[in-house]
């Protein structure tokens, strides 16, 4: 049995952060109903990643909204709003990511909803929290990465700001929202009182950098320094990084520098005998390593380092990975089917419960495809 069986989630959120939280709840067993604007629906439906269109909608939308139902309703119309309120009355959780004030104007603010449903967990995601000078700014991933210092951690010293190449802040905010919701479902189960969960992208971005920021404060406000080359973490010493080999790349996560020198037959490294050298002289050490590792193939280096318990790995592309037995044994992929028969492949939930992989074959919903059934099952009943 999936852990959230019998829980009902009404999700008004759009784009990525909120819907990624409700996807997690759906995969854990909850029934998730997206409430969408008639005609256009979740704007993510037409938010194209590259030029990939699947069944008329964006691949991103299909990835994030599988295993959900869709209820089309215009919240500005009285009769639609009345239906939605009846749905809310039956729900355990509702989620939205409208800008501050929008839900209140619709009569669906926390204080309004708690009157309709006194035990509901009401969850909202904002870009920059509900206070401060940026509260009305667009909560967009790359802007958040840029404003929170995150772009100075990846890449090399001279690269300028290097963003993380996916919607990392959306993902983290969604993960935090899911945690807050689950924690409050546990407490409302006991107290029988509803709860308000609030997560912002900006707080999530800072939480993500909690180690680096704590270090920044402790360290007298010095900015993180990426290494000149082969940087993988601004605060870690050599050899931490990825290096080019004769035929590919090698990731090296640790190892005392002189030990590496001996193992790799690289005389120059054996001179760095002080433990502090690994950090203080990391640019020098990395340059020596980088020059040396180019001389042989990745396999050859792994054959030397792995038996010596040095933490290292080859660097794979998605195509290499998918062919690898290490990936296949995870059984991470699944095929899902939309109501109209359109089928696509995607990943599954990363959490295993009681040894079970949490698969679901339900594809993403067409806009409003479940209105009739939802009215019959949840509203008229």
């Amino acid at each position: 049995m999936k852990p959230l069986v019998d829980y009902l989630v009404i999700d008004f959120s759009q784009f990525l952060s909120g819907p990624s939280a409700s996807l997690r709840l759906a995969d854990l067993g909850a029934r998730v109903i997206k409430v969408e604007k008639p005609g256009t629906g979740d704007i993510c439906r037409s938010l194209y990643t590259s030029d990939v269109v699947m069944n008329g909608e964006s691949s991103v939308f299909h990835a994030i909204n599988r295993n959900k139902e869709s209820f089309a309703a215009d919240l500005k119309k009285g009769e639609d709003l009345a239906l939605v309120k009846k749905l809310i009355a039956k729900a355990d959780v509702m989620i939205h990511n409208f800008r501050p004030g929008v839900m209140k104007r619709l009569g669906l603010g926390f204080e309004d909803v708690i009157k309709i449903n006194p035990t509901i967990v009401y969850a909202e995601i904002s870009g920059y929290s509900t206070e401060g000078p940026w509260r009305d700014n667009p909560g967009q991933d790359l802007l958040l990465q840029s404003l929170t210092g995150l772009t100075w951690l990846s890449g090399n010293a001279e690269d300028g700001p290097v963003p993380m190449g996916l919607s990392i802040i959306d993902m983290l905010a969604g993960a935090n929202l899911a945690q807050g919701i689950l924690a409050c479902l546990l407490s409302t189960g006991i107290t029988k009182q509803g709860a308000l969960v609030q997560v912002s992208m900006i707080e999530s971005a800072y939480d993500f950098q909690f180690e680096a920021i704590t270090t920044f404060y402790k360290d007298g406000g010095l900015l993180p320094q990426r290494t000149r080359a082969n940087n993988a973490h601004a605060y870690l010493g050599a050899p931490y990084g990825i290096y080019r080999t004769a035929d590919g790349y090698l990731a090296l996560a640790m190892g005392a520098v002189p030990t590496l020198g001996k193992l790799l037959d690289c005389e120059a490294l054996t001179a760095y005998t002080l433990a502090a050298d690994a950090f203080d002289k990391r640019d020098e050490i990395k340059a020596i390593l980088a020059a040396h590792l180019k001389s042989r193939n990745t396999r050859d280096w792994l054959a030397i380092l792995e038996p010596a318990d040095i933490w290292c790995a080859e660097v794979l592309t998605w195509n290499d990975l998918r062919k690898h037995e290490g990936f296949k044994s995870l059984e991470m992929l699944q095929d899902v089917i939309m109501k109209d028969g359109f089928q696509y492949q995607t990943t599954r939930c990363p959490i295993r419960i009681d040894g079970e992989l949490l698969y679901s074959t339900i594809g993403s919903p067409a806009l409003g495809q479940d209105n009739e059934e939802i009215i019959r099952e949840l509203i008229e009943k």
Partner: protein
Amino acid sequence: MKPLEGLLVLEFAQFMAGPTAGLKLADLGARVIKIERPYKGEGGRQIAIKNLFIEDDSLVFHTINRNKESYAADLKDEDDLAKVKKLIAQADVMTHNFRPGVMEKIGLTYQEVCKINPRIVYGVVTGYGTKGPWANKPGQDLLVQSLSGLTWLSGTRDDGPVPFGLAIADMACGAHLTQGILAALLKRNKTGKSVLVEVSLLESVLDLQFELLTTHLNDGGRLPQRSSVRGGGHPYLSAPYGIYKTSDGHLTLAMGNLLAIGRCLGCDLTGYEDKSSWFEKRDEIATKLGAHLSNNSTEYWRARLEEQGIWCSAVYNYQQALQHEAFKVLGMTQEVKLGDGSGLITTRSPIQINRKKLYADKAAPKTGEDTDKINIEFNI
């Protein structure tokens, strides 16, 4: 009241992924007790960044393990193990990240623990799952990033692999462990029976890439194409998405109507009227925009764009970001009081419950700091 008050979590997990889950549970109100080997404590106490230590423990350890207690026990010693079993009998949750086989030797596998406590939620973190050729490979963040394909998403085309510059696999996995544990507690409360939760660093980093992987799986297996121009923000998004150099810093442009953006900036983008060119000619467009934006300051461009509601921002480092009013108003930091009387400034939980920020300024424990107190309290 914090939502998890009354829950008892035993954390056998070490290093980062498991302990970040413990921190999240603690900040949400659970009582988290680290079970550590005597004297040396968990391995994470010696993992330092920038060689920074506070007394005998690394700054990183302090960051991840505030708001927890520590109980020292040698799990290879029969007496100690018997005491730990008494604690387990009274716990709601336990977590560990030992390599496959270790808990079997000690006698604390899920099956054995269920006999001691048939209502426990048992959370396990591995590097790569329990089957297959990587099952015994060290579960380390950079290695997992490297194997997962993640390193081909950031930076530019000619950079080679570019890892995310912090422990992303650990952080994502800790978040998933937290979710799994909380969902399992809901199930346990309903059924009255124990639940096993398993996560791995690799599955977590694959999940992090789920939207892009889904695109890749349905576009004929094409690999991500990073921009050849420095500042590219996302391998799958069209121009102008990225960061551009200005005369005095940088400017970020998110997605938007390229032609309207060009007009607003006074940048000639004729020839790109067809929307499909925004992706196909992404690098060419970025080069043109970059040359244009370098002629004036970030603030000059930002003001123009903002006037028309175009999504953009400056690019801040920590000195700029953490001094900004928009950061201060969040109340995102707290000062943890250390044993030597000094303070450590760190961040708080990012989740607000019932309009309350979740602060918890208890410092990380010394190894075994709470052993005696816990022995008395739990009648051990």
